């Protein structure tokens, strides 16, 4: 095979590799609330470091630490068999 043909093959292979790398996975769309506004980024939390931070810190992937979900009963009071269940939806405001 001539040198020109070898160079062409390598060029083609490099071009294919670049195309594959360029076709990266897109970030998932931001979830929206039913009214069209955005849901809060529940995974962004300020880091408790010594120097002050100005805003919410970078996002961390959920479930990345391997901890089990919080038991619901720890955020409840009373008899779970009571005739009435009241669920309070709040944000501490």
């Amino acid at each position, binding site marked *: 095979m001539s040198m020109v043909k070898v160079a062409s093959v390598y060029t083609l292979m490099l071009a294919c590799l670049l195309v594959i790398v360029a076709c990266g996975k897109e970030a998932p769309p931001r*979830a929206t*609330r*039913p*009214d069209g*506004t*955005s*849901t*809060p*980024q*529940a*995974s*962004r*939390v*300020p*880091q*408790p*470091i010594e*120097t*002050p*931070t*100005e*805003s*919410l810190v970078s996002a*961390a992937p*959920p*479930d*990345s*630490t391997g*901890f089990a*979900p*919080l*038991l*619901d009963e*720890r*955020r*409840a*009071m*009373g*008899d*779970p*068999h*009571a*005739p*009435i*269940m*009241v*669920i*309070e*939806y*709040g*944000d*501490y*405001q």
Partner: protein
Amino acid sequence: MFVRETKPQIEEQYIKTGKVYFVHRDFPLTDVHPGALLAAHVANCAAAQNGFWPMHDQLFAGQVAGEWNNSRQSDVNRFLEYTQSLGLDVAEMTRCISDNRYASQIEADFREAAEKGVRSTPSFLVNGTLIVGAYPFSAWQEILDKQLAQQ
């Protein structure tokens, strides 16, 4: 007002008497309450130390007093003060917040609430019926007694 005045009465007359099972779920409206998401994390981290309700009440009281609500380092410091004053483990709280440990829990709460029609806080589901707003105890008595009568 609900946490300071109404909830204690509901607790005395309905929860402790076995009539009501009272549950909290997070619905952080960060667009209008910038500190809400961090507060939700702190409350869940407190729950992991079996200190949810004291922290829940402290967060509400602190917010009313203007002690936090910007989600910046000052809020973090304040919440760690609350943690210490409530006798909880500060180092564990710090780790819990840094680990983002309950992010998916909070997201799941929010998603579930939105699916059930919740749009603002406070909102309540009373045996599946949506109640929106912080009503006084007299209104809650009427709601709960009516539910009990239907059982």
